[in-house]
């Protein structure tokens, strides 16, 4: 044991990967750290992207360094000199591989510690998620084994660069080959952390636990690949007993890797946006995560999942003008509560996200689906607030008044008038410019409520919106029931 430790210590001191650690750290900072830390402070987003980017950061330097170490004995013409040492060749090679892997893991753990440490200080709940970090960690021994085996078996001056670039090429290619196939075997690639076609999504793994199914299969595959590659090193030039043992190890590794690939072929996106593999799935992970929502102190509280607490102030500010208008009136919602998203794959339209519960007129709780939970590009806090303002604001009013298709002209006019209020005020002066701007692709204030410019309904809406807030409120308090019943005409609006 002492001899093994000493050999490992010697290998650690004379390892090319030690020299590559600064390179890896710089690459990690340049591509992963800056990108991940620029994301909204959500564990699911950051952990998923950390897995993808860090694997890409490590693959080339690590595989190259491992190939360089693997070809060392041949390069320095030491093969004959070390042949007479009492230690078996396989054990000697494994010590070099282990030292290379240890250096890579040290660098990786340091990088992950920084990202997770910083994120822990910014995020209120929902993590940390360890499975994505574990998959990236498991990929390091596999990459080392790949490069090392190539270096031992084909020790030429071109081995290190060719192996490093081929490994990178296969990784990049795998993402291209997944395509739109949700059952693609290429999802076994360790850079895949979420349903590939939906990408990293803030709505995933917050209301429901992170599903480790795909991660388990990936770790199984990577371990199998590493064991297979290391086993092949002992199949030539060793004693019969060692060859037999190596044969068994190689077969076991191959079986594990093949099984993992087959399992990934059975995967599919579940309603919570994560990859489910039936054979690896734990039903306990289907239960929603219990949490106490964080609520604002508005006239009608806006309550979000703690993981989204960074959006609370801006969301409240976006909805506050409308909430102030209707708070305390009969039929107004008692609170605005964020809800989980439901993901589904449509055979014609691809992946889509819908609210799990939806809203009905006059309900005591308005269910809010934040725009960041939808598919699409990652939004800033201000963009999210702007979209909430122009989608949920009018929706809350419509539910309250009962406006919409089939409603009376007066209902639609009042709903439009209350929605126009959104365009005038914002409680948070810092957000005023963004919130009062038009949502990308959204309606302008004059088009709200589906009213046509120049019609009597639009004139009535503008007239009602121009009233002082107290007057509007007093009129609503006394006429709301009749308005909802469709008994008020446009001419009766003040």
């Amino acid at each position, binding site marked *: 044991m002492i001899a093994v430790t000493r050999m490992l210590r010697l290998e650690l001191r004379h390892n090319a990967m030690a020299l590559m650690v600064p390179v890896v750290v710089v690459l990690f900072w340049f591509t992963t750290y800056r990108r991940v830390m620029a994301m909204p402070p959500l564990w699911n987003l950051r952990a998923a992207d950390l897995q993808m980017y860090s694997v890409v*950061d490590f693959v*080339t330097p690590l595989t*190259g360094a491992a190939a360089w170490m693997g070809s060392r004995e041949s390069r320095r013409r030491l093969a004959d000199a070390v042949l007479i040492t009492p230690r078996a060749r396989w054990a000697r090679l494994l010590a070099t591989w282990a030292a290379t892997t240890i250096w890579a893991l040290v660098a990786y753990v340091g990088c992950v510690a920084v990202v997770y440490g910083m994120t822990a200080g910014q995020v209120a709940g929902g993590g940390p998620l360890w499975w994505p970090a574990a998959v990236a960690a498991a990929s390091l021994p596999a990459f080392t084994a790949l490069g090392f085996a190539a270096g031992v078996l084909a020790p030429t001056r*071109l081995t290190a*660069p060719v192996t490093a*670039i081929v490994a990178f*090429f296969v990784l990049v290619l795998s993402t291209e080959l997944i395509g739109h196939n949700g059952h693609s075997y290429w999802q076994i690639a360790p850079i895949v952390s979420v349903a590939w076609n939906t990408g990293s999504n803030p709505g995933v793994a917050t209301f429901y636990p992170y599903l480790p199914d795909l991660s388990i299969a990936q770790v199984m595959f990577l371990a199998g690949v590493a064991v297979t590659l290391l086993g092949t090193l002992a199949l030539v030039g060793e004693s019969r007993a060692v060859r037999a043992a190596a044969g068994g190890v190689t077969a076991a590794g191959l079986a594990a890797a093949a099984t993992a690939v087959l399992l990934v072929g059975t995967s599919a996106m579940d309603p919570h946006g994560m990859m489910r593999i039936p054979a690896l799935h734990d039903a306990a992970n289907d239960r929603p995560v219990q949490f106490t929502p964080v609520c604002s102190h508005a006239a009608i509280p806006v309550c979000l999942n703690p993981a989204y607490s960074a959006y609370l102030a801006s969301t409240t500010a976006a909805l506050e003008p409308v909430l102030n208008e209707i708070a305390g009136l009969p039929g107004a919602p008692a609170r605005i509560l964020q809800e989980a998203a439901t993901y589904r794959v449509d055979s014609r339209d691809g992946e889509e996200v819908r609210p799990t519960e939806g809203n009905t007129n006059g309900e005591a709780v308005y269910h809010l689906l934040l725009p960041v939970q939808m598919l699409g590009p990652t939004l800033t806090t201000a963009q999210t607030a702007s979209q909430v303002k122009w989608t949920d604001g009018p929706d809350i009013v419509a539910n309250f008044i009962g406006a919409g298709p089939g409603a009376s002209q007066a209902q639609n006019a009042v709903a439009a008038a209350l929605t126009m209020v959104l365009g005038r005020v914002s409680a948070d002066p810092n957000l005023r410019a963004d919130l009062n701007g038009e949502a990308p692709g959204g309606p302008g204030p004059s088009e709200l409520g589906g009213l046509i410019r120049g019609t009597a309904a639009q004139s009535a809406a503008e007239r009602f919106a121009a009233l002082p807030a107290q007057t509007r409120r007093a009129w609503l308090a006394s006429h709301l029931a009749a308005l909802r019943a469709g008994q008020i005409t446009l001419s009766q609006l003040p």
Partner: protein
Amino acid sequence: MNTPAMTATGQATATRLATAARLLRLYAASRRTPSALAAIAGCAIALRVALLGHWDAYGALQLPLVIETAAATVVAATVASPFGEPERVCGRWLPFLRLAATVALTVTATSALVIAAATGGHLAGGTLDVIRNVAGITGLGLLCAATLGGGLSWTGPTAYLLPGVYALYTQWHGPALTTPWLWPARPPHDLGGALCAGLVFAAGLAVITMRGARDRPGDGE
């Protein structure tokens, strides 16, 4: 009718040519040039096969970049000398051989990739993109060979590959990286990117021509 003097001159010229040819052949063999040519041919074939696919926007630029980097590392790997100091002392023509071999291999690598793409495939960046990328990344490899040793010349190009691929990615998933030092992400006709790549190639070529790769035990194998 040949006079004895003319015959002697002709024989001397023929001898010099034969010597030069032998010198070139031995130099190429010592630098594993045949292996490098085979690897470059492999890169060209890989590019042609990759172009059979219908890649999405940045994949169509990333995959060729990976192969261009492979070709550039192969060129840079050939500068390692198996002889070290004795060759430096005795090799009067060594700087010229290093210059000629490196330029010839770079041109060969670029031509091979362009020809491979021209045989029916669609190369998203075009010919200028290949020339710029191969030259610039080869320059990085040459600089690494001069500082770290010929055997480790691959470290620079492979390390640069990731920022290059990432910069291409950011053109679609912003914020976009637009510095000309990340020339793979610049448009093919971009002057800044071409100047940076050309500068790196010129610097690498100059250093390798004058000093050669740093000698390290086992680098020339």
